Structure formats: C-alpha cells, structure tokens
C-alpha cells in the first residue's frame, strides 16, 4: 500500500472499530466467557450456575461471575479465565462463605453505589447467631449465606419467587430444621415447621395472605438467628402484641415467671404451635392453664376463677341479646342499629380477654361492667322491637274489625237499596 492508501484506511478502521465497540458496549451484558462456556457443559453441577444466573439480582446490576469468583471473563480458554494471577478464587470453602459475600455486602462505600438503603452489617450479625457461632467453632453443617439465599439464582427479598420472601421463609428454614436425619447431631427438635403450620400466625400468613403475620425470622431474627431468651420472649411477641406484653410486664406473673425460670408468653401459648386462644385456657376448670400452678385457696386461683366467670357472664349476655334481636329481625322488624350497637359489647369482650394478661380481676371488671350494660341495652332493644311487633298486630286486628264492619255495613246498604228499588229488568 502506498502511503496515501494507508492514511486513508486508518481512520476508516478506527471508525469501524468504534462502531464495533459501540455495538458491543451497547449490549446489556459485558462479555463473560465463564457463562458462555459453562452453559454448554454437560455436567449439571457445572452448567446450572450459568443457567440460574439469568434470574440473579446481581446480574441485573451488571455484575458477573468474576465479581465474586475473580478471573478473567474476557479470556477464551479455561486456563486463562481461571488464572489465579487474575484473581481467580474458585469455589469458596463453607467456612469462608460469609467473608466471600461480605467482600461487597459489608463494604458500605461499595454498597451505597448499588442500593444506599441496604444494611451492611449482615456478616457481623451472622457471627452472633447460633449458625455463625457454630461455624466459627468448626461445624460444617450449619446455614451460611447461600443456604437461605441460594446461590447463582439469588432474588431480592421482595420477589415472591425468592427463597426468603415472607411466604417462603419457613420452607427455607425447614429444609434443615425439619430434616430429622440432618439435625440428629444437634439434638434440637425438628417439628417446628409442622407446629408452626398449625398456628394462627401461619393461618394468617398462608391462608389469608397477610404478609404482616410473623414467620421464623420475625421472632428469631434472620442473620442473627437465635431463639429469644426466656426473659425476653415477651419483648419479641410484644413487637405486635404490645398491649398484652405491656400488661404482662407489670403483672404479678412477670416476677413469678422470672423466678421460676418460666418462659414468658410461650408457657401458656406455646412458641411454634400458637393456637387461636380460647376461653378454655383461663379459669379453674379441667383444661385451664391456671391450675397448672395455682391451687384452690391461693390468690391466683381466685383471680382466675373470677376473670373466667365474668367473661362467661358477658358472653351469655351477648348471646341472649343477639338471639332476641335475630328473632325480631326474622319476624320482620328492622333492627340493624341495635345490632350494630351490640358490637360494642363484643369489643368489651375482646378487651377483657386481653386484660387477663394483667392477671388482675379489677382490670377485667373495669371493661366487663360497661360491656354488660351495652349487651343489656341490646336486649332491651330486642324486647322493644318485639313489643312494637305485637302492638302492630293488635293494631291490625282492631283496624281489621273496623274495616270488615264497614264493608258489612256497605253491603247491607246495597241490599237495602236494592230491595227498596229493585234492579230493573
């Protein structure tokens, strides 16, 4: 080539290269020879990570294999790509996983580039958990980051397909904690999920899709997962059941439970199998929980008896009022207002059932009294409706007599007219 041709070609080549570079960089993903190769491999252990990565939240942030594993994603041979001098780390050991993820997730400066609101203390919190402590002591069969979050196909917590989405958390924990064989060495129960699934919290979560209902991590923590201590259970339950927790903390039971080493809340309500509480739990009859500690003659026994009696009284009164109002309604009277007002008595009942956590009869009496008043008013409204109904029927009977009498008189008048002046032919 003569000089001129060469000079002419260079800018064209540069331009062509720029266009090429533009098109390659315009594509969403940088070149990743790791994925390109691994996706084609036969062994699923080697190809799955590449295939799963499509759905990974890290991928959508522009990250790839080398951002965690090191190496050179532009290299086209296995040796060049997995060159330790290019920072290739390979597959981490179990004990190194928290630090592996923490490489980025504990770095506040790095994380705020991607999501400023994400916490960066998961790794340090993890080492306060039972899992983290066991891992540090050399135990391999514990949960690490990837046990719960999965690996290569990690989705955001808010993604319903994520293994840590509220509806999926219990299944994720249950993978180990529900496996009796796997957990044999740890000597802790493995029936938590079964028990939890029968609880009122699981009913709210799974059946009513109420995402505010608690699952494993809401009581145990997620990264710092530890069962709450005996004296602090009330605080945990009190996150939502604040009223009951407050009442308990100032009740006579708090001191007694702490002295006897009894776990708060769960002594009566159980921890995983929290059934919908019924009135059967309180009182002094067969099946009540109070008589597990209290005996006839002590203050607690009397209080339990009194509280249950009063609650039963209110229930009976509400039922009576409901019955008479329904009767009036079936007979055609309009009683929607009294029925609505009666709800105030049911409110008082709910309130009383909460107040038993104060273990104080007087507190319960404070709401039962007004509740009985409301129920009484409802009953009276029912009586009034039935009285009005019978008044209407009596009124009807009287007016029918008049009406029939009048009709008869008119008929007689007609007959009289026609005998005086008969119908002409």
């Amino acid at each position, binding site marked *: 080539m003569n000089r001129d041709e060469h000079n002419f070609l260079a800018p064209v080549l540069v331009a062509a290269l720029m266009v090429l570079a533009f098109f390659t960089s315009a594509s969403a993903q940088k070149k990743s020879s790791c994925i390109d190769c691994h996706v084609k491999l036969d062994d699923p252990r080697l190809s799955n990570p590449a295939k799963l990565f499509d759905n990974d939240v890290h991928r959508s942030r522009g990250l790839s294999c080398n951002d965690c594993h090191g190496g050179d994603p532009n290299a086209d041979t296995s040796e060049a790509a997995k060159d330790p001098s290019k920072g290739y780390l390979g597959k981490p050991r179990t004990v190194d996983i928290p630090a592996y993820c923490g490489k980025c997730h504990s770095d506040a400066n790095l994380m705020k580039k991607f999501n400023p609101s994400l916490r960066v203390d998961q790794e340090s919190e993890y080492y306060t958990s039972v899992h983290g402590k066991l891992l540090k002591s050399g135990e391999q069969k514990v949960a690490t980051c990837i046990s719960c979050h999965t690996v290569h196909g990690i989705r955001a917590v808010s993604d319903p397909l994520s293994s840590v989405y509220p509806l999926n958390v219990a299944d994720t924990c249950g993978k180990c904690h529900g496996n009796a064989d796997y957990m044999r060495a740890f000597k802790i129960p493995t029936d938590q999920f079964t028990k939890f699934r029968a609880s009122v919290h699981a009913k709210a979560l799974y059946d009513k899709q*109420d995402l*505010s*209902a608690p699952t494993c991590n809401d009581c145990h923590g997620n990264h710092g997962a530890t069962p709450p201590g005996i004296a602090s259970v009330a605080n945990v339950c*009190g*996150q*939502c*059941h*604040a*009223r009951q927790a407050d009442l308990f903390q100032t009740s006579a039971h708090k001191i007694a439970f702490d002295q006897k080493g009894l776990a708060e809340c769960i002594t009566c309500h159980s921890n995983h199998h929290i059934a919908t509480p019924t009135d059967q739990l309180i009182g002094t009859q067969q099946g009540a929980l109070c008589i597990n500690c209290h005996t006839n003659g002590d203050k607690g026994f009397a209080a339990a008896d009194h509280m249950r009696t009063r609650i039963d009284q209110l229930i009976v009164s509400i039922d009576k009022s409901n019955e008479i109002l329904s009767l009036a309604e079936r007979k055609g009277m309009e009683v*929607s*207002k009294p029925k*609505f007002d009666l709800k105030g008595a049911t*409110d008082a009942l*709910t309130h009383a059932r*909460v107040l038993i956590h104060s273990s104080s009869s007087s507190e319960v009496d404070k709401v039962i009294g007004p509740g009985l008043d409301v129920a009484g008013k409802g009953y009276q409204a029912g009586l009034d409706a039935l009285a009005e109904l019978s008044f209407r029927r009596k009124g009807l009977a009287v*007016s029918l007599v*008049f*009406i029939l*009498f*009048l009709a008869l*008189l*008119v008929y*007689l*008048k007609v007959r*009289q007219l026609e*005998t*005086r*002046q*008969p119908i*002409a032919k």
Partner: protein
Amino acid sequence: MNKPLQDRTTQSVEPPGLESRRRFLDYLLGTSAVATLGAIVYPIIRFMSPPKIIESTESSVVAAKLNEVPVNSGKIFKFGSKPGILVRTDSGELKAFSAVCTHLDCIVQYQSETKQIWCACHNGQYNLNGKNVGGPPPRPLEEFKVNTRGDEIVVTKA
C-alpha cells in the same frame, strides 16, 4: 223479603219500622266510615310530622361539642353505622378519620404520648394524616371533613 215491587219512578212510602232501620243503618254507615277514614288519615298525619331524629346520620353527623375535645386528645364517635375518631392536634387543628383499623377491623385510639393513632390489637400505627406508618395495617385510614358550627363539631364524608 216479601215486599211487592215498587214503582221505579216514584219514591216509595215505607212503614215506619223500615224507615227507622234505614236511618239506623245510614247512621252506623256514616260513623264507621268517618272512623275508618280517621284511622287512615291519622297514620298519614303522624307520618308527615317530623320524627324524633330528623334525618339519617350516614353522610354527616355532629361528632362532639368543641369543649369535649381538648388539645392533643382523641374521641370516638358514631358515624352512621361505623365508628369514627376525632382528633385535636397539638396545633389545635381538628381531624377526623374512620376508626376501623385497616388490618383486622379493630377500633383504633389516639395516643397522646406518641401523638399518633394506635391500634391496640397488633400495635398498628397511623400518623395524623391517617397514613399507616407502623405495624401490620396495609392501608391508611379514610379521612373525613371536619367543620365547626357554633359549638358543634360536624363531620362529613369527604
């Protein structure tokens, strides 16, 4: 009756017994007609007179009197068939919301310490704009319009 046919065109002359029977029947007829008409007109007049409660309270209600709601306090009132909550803020402003918690329908209350609306059932929190800011409630509380009329506080659906 074996009475002979009367002449159609002339008024008949009846024996006195029949005459008084006719008058008695007419008298009875007249009085019972008046009585029945009265029994019809009476309910109509009562119907037309204004009843005790002059109109249904579904869309507007007097929630309370001004002096019943001091600063930094709340009051539950009945709005049609549902409960409402009336709050006077620190700055003296009156606000009203539906008192039915959007989580599981418990009745909320005003907490003067936190200056928020609180649900005792599962520790739900709402701020003074009705927005759900803490706990399980998934939606804000419906807000109502508040006006004052003399010394009465009138709440209407927004």
